[in-house]
């Protein structure tokens, strides 16, 4: 009753192949986009930006990246934190090495550097699958974090071993550093998320995305159709690592400003992003966004309810967060492996028939 595609006829294949083939969805998308770009920058506060918006935008990019690799191409990775660290350290080295380079270009370059590292650590995927590949990526995670701790060239030989983002401006507004206005940081990250999400969507609905999914679903059949597994898997690693690298770059430069690698990009980060795509939905761009939003909002909401309203101690709320996330992961893996995105699809199918059951 509320949601249906009846009367929404398509007369060209182009119309049928667009991202939102249903008019209602398309309108909703444009409205959300208009609010995010036209309204939000004027109303965001420091708290909302730092507690919700920036982590959401940045994790969403990482989640899309991991989803391309794990959800679309079927290659499990536990190295997300390590690859985010590569993005962050590449950004730091580029920022300090080339002070005149525009920060947006630096972020993109960091993405490309991470893509290169990702391809390198993706090479084992040509020989091993499943659990064994997960362990190989785990090795990448620990190796990269160790390397950024050990090799002092990466943090410019600073005594603390930390990296700090110097101030860089874009169109006259500081984007990194302490002087950054919340709305600038928000818009900067949002722009990256929008562009990258659109690219991810285009790639996954086209030829290269189908080759990834073919490898995921039945690698032998994919090869016999003409998909080169080497090229397909490594391209997934490259694209995925690019996204994760950009996310790590923004996480360091725009969000945190100062980073200690083991703390910011440890194994917990890998699991956090993996949980986002499991809860959000494997093999879905929308699911990546939903999962990132969920994992970012959950602790905030719990704190709001349990600490601010009920007056319970803070650590209780923090532990409760673990319990809820753990239970949800188990529940989603058992009942709905395709996550929130699939629940949303089912809800839409039901709404189409409502109030009738069939």
């Amino acid at each position, binding site marked *: 009753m509320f949601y249906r595609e009846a009367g929404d006829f398509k007369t060209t294949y182009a119309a049928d*192949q667009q991202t939102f083939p249903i008019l209602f969805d398309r309108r909703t998308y444009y409205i959300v986009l208009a609010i995010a770009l036209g309204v939000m920058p004027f109303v965001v506060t420091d708290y909302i930006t730092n507690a919700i918006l920036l982590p959401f935008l940045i994790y969403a990019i990482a989640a899309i990246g991991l989803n391309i690799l794990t959800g679309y191409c079927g290659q499990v990775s536990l190295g997300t934190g390590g690859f985010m660290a590569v993005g962050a350290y590449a950004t730091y080295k580029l920022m300090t090495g080339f002070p005149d380079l525009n920060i947006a270009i630096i972020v993109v370059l960091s993405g490309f550097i991470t893509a290169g590292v990702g391809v390198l650590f993706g090479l084992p995927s040509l020989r091993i699958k499943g659990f064994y590949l997960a362990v190989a990526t785990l090795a990448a995670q620990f190796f990269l974090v160790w390397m950024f701790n050990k090799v002092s060239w990466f943090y410019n030989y600073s005594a603390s071993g930390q990296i700090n983002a110097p101030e860089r401006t874009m169109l006259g507004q500081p984007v990194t550093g302490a002087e950054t206005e919340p709305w600038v940081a928000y818009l900067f990250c949002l722009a990256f998320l929008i562009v990258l999400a659109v690219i991810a969507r285009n790639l996954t609905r*086209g*030829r290269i995305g189908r080759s990834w*999914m*073919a490898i995921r*679903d039945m690698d032998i059949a994919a090869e*016999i*159709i*003409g*998909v080169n597994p080497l090229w397909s898997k490594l391209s997934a690693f490259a694209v995925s690592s690019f996204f994760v690298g950009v996310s790590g770059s923004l996480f360091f430069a725009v969000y945190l400003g100062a980073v200690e690698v083991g703390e910011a990009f440890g194994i917990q980060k890998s699991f956090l992003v993996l949980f986002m795509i499991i809860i959000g939905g494997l093999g879905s761009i929308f699911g990546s966004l939903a999962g990132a939003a969920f994992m970012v909002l959950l602790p905030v909401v719990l704190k709001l309810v349990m600490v601010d309203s009920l007056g319970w101690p803070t650590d209780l709320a923090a532990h409760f967060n673990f319990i809820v996330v753990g239970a949800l992961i188990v529940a989603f893996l058992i009942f709905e492996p395709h996550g929130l995105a699939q629940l949303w699809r089912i809800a839409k199918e039901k709404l189409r028939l409502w109030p009738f059951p069939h």
Partner: protein
Amino acid sequence: MNDMSPDGYTTPDGRQIGGVMMEVKNITLRFGGVVAIKDISFDIREGEIRAIIGPNGAGKSSMLNVINGFYHPQEGEVWFNGAKRKAMKPHAIAKQGIARTFQNIALFKGMSTLDNIMTGRFTKMNAGFWSQCLWKGKAEQEEIENREYVEKIIDFLEIQAIRKTPVGRLPYGLQKRVELGRALAAEPKLLLLDEPMAGMNVEEKEDMSRFILDVNDEFGTTIALIEHDMGVVMDISDRVVVMDYGRKIGDGTPDVVRADPAVIDAYLGVAHD
């Protein structure tokens, strides 16, 4: 029929069969100590429907796997389109124009019927990475052109209604049909079908036989198929290779093969007296 001319022959029902397209010469394939295929030679002619039959474990599927490059035989040569083929990966062989279906359905379960068949067009598409990122220019144009071709196949196989259904949800018979569609999408010169009718009821077998004959007739595709239903094999194929224990025990038209004592022995057993 072994005296047929190298340029081809005419079938009893009047179809013109061309020259040799694919020839395997003295193929021997071993897995460790097990000899799966021993010294097998036969040819497949252009426009032909060529059946490979034999009891279970005779090496029929291994033979198809050799032809499409999944197994590399220890001895012997594969000739395709008049040239000896080097050992190459299956995805390179796909580009040469050999497509296949599998005995156990090997569809991409998470994708829709349409996407499965579109994936079959993989070798026909070559838009650059950046064009695909932006969905502009060549990538967009290519998606539409290939969609048109895929829609022709969907019409041909009469699966319009399940275009957007994830193939995991489809019944067995339809999955087999989608798999045929995916192989056809590559516009193969040679189509290998591994038991296209296994597990089907009579109506589904009739449908599938009709599709195979129509593919051969309308697209001019050469077909090599493995099948256990003798009625179907004798009815639709032009020539039959019979295998048993990895050896070739018979080769010729259905009538010749049916009358061959070695074939009868293999299928019915030999009286030991």
